[in-house]
Structures are given as structure tokens and as C-alpha cells.
């Protein structure tokens, strides 16, 4: 009997109807299946435009990517309806994961076509849409997690496609170092940002199907247990898929 039996992972997807452009649903599906296969309960709810957010009621908050227009609507809505709840969630150690547009909104600001969208401010990062080509392509990054269950640096593979360049404040911790691809701004060599259990990244593809080990780390972190306490699964296809995504980025496993 795995220790997971006593747990339920409670996930809240923010704007699942709008911020879903890069198959973000795949990330949620991976969380769900990997909990269910282990006998861990799984609850998923959504919170969209105009809806309040419960900062105490979930273990995992997810926000994906969207088109510019939708992202503007969400930025305003986050400010009006969800700002406090997300800060409360972060304070109590819930996982908050933003991918692509969601990452940009978790930062302090996003300057887009002359407008400044106010971010949630959970990550010390600001994003600017600059002239020049979008940063597009396969990407692999290397990250170190301070978790005894995760041995040494591990690789995340995915795909990035963003017009905004994200600049980290000096106090910020990047999520990882770019092995291949553009990363935050195409120059710094860093990708994503992390503040406690709040994580932002440009990696989609989607992220979690290509990096099942990271999905498990997030599940364990959200449940407040070590990743070693999760029951092992038959991950042969997951590992093949990870290798396939790494190969696409030019970083052989």
C-alpha cells in the first residue's frame, strides 16, 4: 500500500476556457492519471473570468497560455478577483504553475503594445513584448531541485513559442539553465523562474507529458510529501517520450 492512499490532490485550473492554447489540458490530464494510477484522489475545478478563487482550498493552481486578447482579459481579472487568493495559496506552500502566458502573468508586469498589464507579482520577473521574431522552437533546460528524492540535476524538454522576453530581477531564481533553445529572453541563458513552490516556465509541449518525473515532483510537492513516497509506475512510454522530446531539442538522453 502506497503512502499516497491518504491523499487527494486538489487542482484548480485558472481560465481553462481561455488559457489553453498550447494543449495545456495535457498537463492536467497527466496530473490526473498519475494520481489515479497510484490510488491518490484527484479533484479538478476551474476558475474563469469574474469568478472568485479559493486561496485555501486547493493544493495546485495551474494557469496556461492564451492569445494576446485573452491574456489581457485574464490580467485584469487576476488583478480584480484572484490576486489575494493566489498570494494566500503561495504563502501556505501550494504549487502555483504558470506555463507560457500564465508564467508572464505570474510576474510583476507585462508590457504589450504600449500597455502595461499588471502581473500577480508572485515571481520577480517582468516581461516585455519587444520587436523582433518570436522565440520559437524545441528547448531543453537543466534544473536542480532541492529535494532529496530527486538526485542531481534533471532535464526538462519541451517547446517554446513566445513574443515576450522575460527579465528576472536580481533577487529571482531561474527555474533552469538553457541547454538548447531561447529561454526567458534569448540571451541570459536562463529559463523560467521559481519562488518557493511558485513556478513559471515557457516550456509547453505540453510540459508534463514530456517530463513525467517533473509531474511527480510537482504532485509530491503539492501534497507535502517527498517524491520518493510516491508509488512507482510503469513509465517506459513516459521515458521514451521524454527521450523523444530531448532528441528533438538536440540533447540526447
Amino acid at each position, binding site marked *: 500500500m502506497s503512502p499516497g492512499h491518504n491523499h487527494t490532490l486538489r487542482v484548480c485550473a485558472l481560465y*481553462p*476556457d*481561455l488559457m*489553453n*492554447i*498550447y*494543449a495545456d*489540458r*495535457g498537463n492536467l*490530464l*497527466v496530473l490526473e*492519471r498519475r494520481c489515479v494510477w497510484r490510488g491518490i484522489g484527484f479533484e479538478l475545478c476551474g476558475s474563469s473570468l469574474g469568478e472568485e478563487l479559493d486561496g485555501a482550498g486547493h493544493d495546485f493552481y495551474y494557469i496556461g497560455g492564451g*492569445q*494576446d*486578447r*485573452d491574456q489581457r*482579459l485574464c490580467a485584469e481579472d487576476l488583478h480584480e478577483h484572484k490576486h489575494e487568493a493566489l498570494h494566500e495559496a503561495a504563502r501556505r506552500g501550494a504549487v502555483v504553475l504558470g506555463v507560457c502566458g500564465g508564467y508572464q502573468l505570474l510576474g510583476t508586469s507585462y508590457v504589450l503594445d504600449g500597455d502595461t498589464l499588471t502581473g500577480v507579482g508572485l515571481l520577480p520577473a517582468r516581461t516585455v513584448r519587444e520587436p523582433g521574431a*518570436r522565440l*520559437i*522552437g*524545441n528547448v531543453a533546460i537543466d534544473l536542480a531541485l532541492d529535494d532529496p528524492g530527486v538526485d542531481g540535476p534533471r532535464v526538462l524538454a519541451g*517547446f517554446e*513559442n513566445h513574443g515576450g522576453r522575460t527579465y528576472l530581477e536580481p533577487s529571482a531564481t531561474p527555474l533552469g539553465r538553457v541547454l538548447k533553445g531561447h529561454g526567458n529572453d534569448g540571451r541570459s541563458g536562463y529559463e523560467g523562474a521559481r519562488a518557493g513552490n511558485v513556478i513559471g516556465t515557457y516550456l*509547453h*509541449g*505540453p510540459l508534463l*507529458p*514530456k517530463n513525467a518525473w517533473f509531474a511527480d515532483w510537482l504532485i509530491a510537492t503539492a501534497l507535502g510529501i517527498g517524491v520518493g513516497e510516491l508509488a512507482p509506475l*510503469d513509465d517506459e*512510454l*513516459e521515458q*521514451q*517520450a521524454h*527521450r*523523444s*522530446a530531448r532528441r*528533438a531539442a538536440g540533447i540526447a538522453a
Partner: protein
Amino acid sequence: MSRMLAPKLALARAAGTVSRLLADRRFRGLLADRQFLRLPIGGGGGTSLPGKLLVRMDQGAISSLAARLARGSALISATNGKTTTAALAASVIERAGIGLVHNQAGANMAGGIASTLLDAARSHGRIAGELGLFEVDEFWLDRLIPQLAPSAIVLGNLFRDQLDRYGELDAIADRWGAALGSEAGKRARLVCNADDPLLADLGRDGRDTVFFGIEDDSLSLPGLSHAADAKHCRRCGAPYEFEAVYLGHLGRYRCPACGQRRPSPTVHAGEVELEGVRRARFLLTTPEGSARVQLALPGVYNVYNALAAAALAITLEIPLATIVDGLQATSAAFGRAETVSIAGRETRILLIKNPAGANEVLRTLALEPGQHDLLGVLNDRTADGHDVSWIWDADFELLAGRVRRAVCSGTRAPELALRLKYAGVQRERIEVVEDLTGALDTAIAGGDSHEPLYALPTYTAMLALRELLVRRGEASSSWQ
């Protein structure tokens, strides 16, 4: 101008001949390293080479050649269904006795269209055909409208597709809108899908648009799919209310905030009956009357393609009986629900390339009873899109519990296999064979050989499959 053009036409034609020779496998052995020549040989790229060269020599070549067409050109663009819609339209229009210049090989960017015009061009400023019928890549439509000065433009649908190449849907719709508002764009008769809110909005700007759509509530889905695009009013940003959803975000909608609603289509389909992957029937209504149509093509998506072709034919004043005959006589283009026999086994090839298209294929496949044997081929080459995320937006869940065996192949084979596993297909029914030849053999030999094999390839995988079948003599080279 035409005197200047003639030698360039000859040169571009000669280049095309050379490239075809080089592509011939009898010559390939002589040229161990084709890369050295830097020619886009094989893989479907060869079709557009002479046209690309022609446009490089003379930027006005497309305009000059298109101007020779007595009835102008009709352009067809959409995310999904361009090739099939053009094939349906060609069948109808040719039946009406109008000679066509048509890029039927599907080369739908400037080079391909220039090649098609080049093939049809004759001496003394003449051209072999009255009307140009061109399917046009979504990304190229705004650039080709001023060059082709079309007499008609058909807009079929816009779905999320290859975001790494095409960008966001709103951006494409804005580019289309600007091109339609240009001098050349304003002169074209617009044929537009009323059920796609983004497109209907483009067709509303005070022009004499022919709208087409479906009028059949029995087809309505329970709601918008999770991957639906264009859920918000292009004018005011409020969410649309859908009374009926037929496919993706296509349906009957209105904006509760600004009152914008779906235009009433004058060409529409009712009483739709779907027969799995085989055929579809519907009652076609036009301003010229109504008639029953039996399509040799399956699914709601092909009903839309047929409506688009019928609406275009109406603008050309083609009689209804001819329209019906032309639609019914059209069989599937390669890879679009086409059936071939491979080593004696019936194989149906269903192209999948983006969530909306794949969902329609999966939905159509799910209508077939029983367990299915599948060969899924996921490539990530440029024409497929380097980003394979989209498979997680496609509803492979529709096949959960319905798969006897799935062989996954292609450059990103394991990721497709993983998608099937998370969709609920049992792990032991999924096999990864990255090499296409091996995968095809495994798939043909496995499962239940009395039942059809369903091949679901992405675009370049479909081309590779075609090449493989031609090489094996299982398919006619006329596909090329």
C-alpha cells in the same frame, strides 16, 4: 510585358524538367548527395520549384499570368479542408463546362500557384483555362489576393493549427480582414462560413457575401470542445452564446453583449446523415432550390467542404443539378479517408494535422462499430509543425475502449503512444515502431486482418506513406 515574360516561362519550365529528372529514382543513384544541389527535390517540394524560380525572376509573374484568365480566379482558404473543397468545386465547375487552372497537387503557396499558372500558360499571352481555382495556404492568402485579383474568395474555417508557423488565430483573421478590405479584396465575391464566428465577422462588412452553414440541430454536440477557438466576440470580447455546436467552434451563436449573431446562410445543409468513415448524406438548400446529396466523403467536416464548393458554384451561376452531380462524383483525395488495399488488407488513410481536424476524424472513426486497428504516424517536420503539443488537444479519448491494436510511428512516435495511453488505451495494445516501413508491416500483419486498418498520419507522414506504397506497387503513381 508578355514578351519579357516568355523567356522566363521557358527557363522556369526547363528548371522544372531538370528537377523532375533529378527526383526520378533512376537518377538518384547518380547523385549520391542531393543536398549538394540544394534543390527541394522529393517530399512533395518539387511541384513548386519552377514557380518559385519564375517568381524570383519576375515578381509580377503571378499577376501577369492570372490576368490571362477570362473569368478570373477563385481562391479557397481554410485551416482544414482546402484540398477537398477545391476538389469538390473542381468537379462541379468542370461539369459545367468551365475550363480550370487548378493547383490540384495541393502546392498552395506562391511557388505552387505560380507553377500551376506556368503549366497552363501558352504562347501569345494565352492560357489553357477560363477560371483559376486555387487552394491557398492561410498564411499566404493576404499576399496572394493583390497578385491574383480574384473574382471570388471562399473562407472555410479557422482553427488553431501549427502555432509555431501560423501564429495566433486572431492575427490570421486580422490579416485576412485587411486583405479583404484592400482594393483587390473588395472586388472579389466573398463566400464565407456563417457558422465560424471569426469568418462570419469578416464577411459582414457591407459586402454581398454568400454565407453557407449547417441547419440541423440533431447534429449538435453537447457543448464547445475544450480546444475550441473563437469563443469570444471579435467585436466586443464577450463570450458568444451557442444554440448549437456542430464542429469545434462552428455552430449557431450570438453575442449577448453587442447582439452580433450568426448570419443566415443562403446555402445550407439539413437532414444530415453520417455513415461512419464511408459517406454522408444531406439536403442541400440554395437560392436555386433544394436537392438531396450523397457524398462519397464522410463526416460533418466534409458536409462543410461540400457546402463551400456549392456556394462557390452558386456565385458562378451553375445549375443545382450540376452542383449535385459534381459533389456526388467526388471521391476522397489521397489521405483524406481514402481506401487502399495493402498486401490484401483494406486500409483507410485519414490525415490528421491539428486538433479540430483530428477530432473530426476521430469522431467519424468512432461512428464505425467494433474494435479498430490503428497505425498512427506523428511527424514534426516543417509542414507538420515542429510543435507536437496539438495531439493533447485532440480527443483521442473517443477511441478509449475501441482500440484492438495501435502501432505508433513517425519522428515523434513515443509521444503519440503516450497520448494514447493517457487517453485510456491499454498499454499492452500500444506498440512503438519508429521506422515507417517496419510500422506499416507490423500494422498490416497485426490485429484482425479481416477488419480494415486505419492509418492516421500527419501531413509529411502521409506523403511518406504514399511514397512507400507507390514504391511497393500498392498504389498508383498518379497520386504524385
